[in-house]
């Protein structure tokens, strides 16, 4: 009987374990999932919490209950993985031997790595919405923030869901307009990138959308210090951005046990992984998916979802003595909430940047256009997340490989000008 151990009961671990459970009978494989707690957070929902559009109780469910019958679920912090012995050591002292290990422990926030960030003013005038506590505290603060300079700052890439800070800006613009105080609140987006986003066509489009909304864009700003008391972000090259309220996306690391496991991770605790087969570079029987994997695409739920299908196929091939040759193309797909009950959809992979057109085919949802339909898509996605994606079922019409049909390739080289849907 194969022993499969899955580290992490979040998006990637849950959907991988459920797919594996369906692939093998109880007598063919024993599957265990380990996580340090029993709170599965619907992370895309965190964006809405600061604006009172979502509440914590709607976003959290028990991890164990998302797993199919016949999967052992252990709540126990991971001490380390001993690759040479093919065993996982848990904090309780328990040891889990494995034939295949799936690493899906995501990314963790590292606010303490930025000077001053968790110092004076943290959770008072400096917040993050990237965890439950931060998102909720920020909601309370935004309720009575009605004048001053709000700065949204990404400290360093990579981060989870690279469009989320932009969505926060768009929603903040909407939020303050609705409350009639937008003329008294200035909004600034401060990023280490050289534009609003990483991929050229989308970066130009999103940059234009910030400008239309009167949101200032500060680029190539590498935050060296957050001075909460003085209300300043200071970059390593000694530029300053002042603020009354700062919403900071801290640097990310992999899970701490990865760094404690000899040979498993890189300097930041992410697991070097073949970007197409999802097999780790650490050992042939170790696979990784989701935010935990160091592969050159976005750290996002859609990526994890698309990876899951490929990873499970390759685990099966490996256990059958075959070469794991199922191929992930880097497919990512994000709804970008743009405020006023509209959203924009982008779809891309390792080789193809986000392009206009429709998804998944010429009669599907509009790509790179703000529409109400995409907003409904984003809201509906939460249902699909719990009921289709986590159980490891396919979403109709949505597959791992990026769909080519419906994409407008003419946009590829030129930079899009405006074809705006005014808010």
């Amino acid at each position, binding site marked *: 009987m194969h022993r499969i151990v899955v580290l992490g009961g979040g998006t990637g671990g849950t959907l991988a374990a459920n797919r594996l459970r369906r692939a093998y009978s109880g007598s063919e494989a024993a599957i265990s999932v380990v996580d340090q707690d029993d709170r599965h957070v619907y992370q895309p929902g965190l964006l809405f919490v600061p604006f009172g559009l979502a509440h914590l109780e709607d976003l959290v469910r028990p991890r164990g209950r998302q797993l199919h019958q016949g999967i052992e679920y252990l709540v126990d912090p991971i001490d380390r993985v001993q690759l040479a012995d093919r065993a996982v050591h848990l904090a309780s002292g328990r040891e889990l031997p494995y034939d295949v290990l799936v690493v899906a422990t995501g990314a963790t926030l590292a606010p303490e790595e930025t000077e001053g960030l968790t110092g004076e003013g943290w959770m008072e005038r400096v917040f993050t919405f990237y965890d439950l506590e931060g998102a909720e505290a920020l909601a309370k603060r935004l309720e009575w923030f009605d004048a001053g300079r709000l700065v949204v700052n990404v400290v360093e890439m*990579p981060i989870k869901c690279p469009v989320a800070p932009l969505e926060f800006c768009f929603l903040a613009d909407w939020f303050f307009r609705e409350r009639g105080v937008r003329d008294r609140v200035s909004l600034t987006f401060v990023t280490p990138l050289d534009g609003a986003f990483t991929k050229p066509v989308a970066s130009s489009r999103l940059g234009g959308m910030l400008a239309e909304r009167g949101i200032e864009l500060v680029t190539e700003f590498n935050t060296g210090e957050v001075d909460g008391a003085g209300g300043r972000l200071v970059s390593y090259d000694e530029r300053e951005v002042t603020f009354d309220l700062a919403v900071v996306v801290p640097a990310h690391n992999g899970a701490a046990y990865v760094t404690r496991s000899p040979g498993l991770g890189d300097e930041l605790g992410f697991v070097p992984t073949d970007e197409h087969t999802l097999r780790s570079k650490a050992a042939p029987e170790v696979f990784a998916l989701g935010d935990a994997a160091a592969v050159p695409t*976005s750290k996002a739920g859609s990526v994890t979802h698309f990876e899951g299908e490929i990873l499970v196929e390759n685990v099966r091939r490996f256990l059958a003595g075959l070469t794991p040759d199922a191929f992930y193309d880097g497919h990512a797909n994000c709804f970008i909430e743009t405020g006023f009950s509209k959203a924009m959809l982008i779809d891309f992979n390792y080789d193809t940047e986000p392009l206009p057109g429709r998804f998944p085919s010429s009669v599907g949802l509009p790509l790179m256009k703000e529409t109400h339909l995409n907003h409904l898509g984003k809201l509906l996605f939460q249902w699909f997340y719990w009921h289709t994606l986590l159980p490891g079922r396919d979403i109709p019409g949505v597959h791992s490989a990026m769909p080519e049909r419906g994409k407008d390739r003419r946009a590829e080289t030129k930079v899009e000008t405006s074809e705006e849907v005014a808010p």
Partner: protein
Amino acid sequence: MTTDTIAGTTVELNEEGFLVDPSQWTEEMAVELARREGIDPLTERHWQVIRFMRQQYEATGSGPTVRVLGKTSGVPVKELYQLFPKGPAKLAAKIAGIPKPRGCI
């Protein structure tokens, strides 16, 4: 892509001025590439970073980000910005003749 002569060797550079073939790189080229970026002379601290970038590239196939450099090169981030102003990871990669770090997606 453009063709250029750097320290007596004909090489190809991409649109952003990065060496297309990292194996063509020599230490003499680094001196000239640095001069073109306004860094002259290259001090021992610069070399420490450049050699580290080469090692990392050879070991992992890509250059490290600033945070990784700060953690592992022995040169703190603040000093990296003094040595290679604006974007240390990008600029040091260019001078070290390796591709632009692709950490940011």
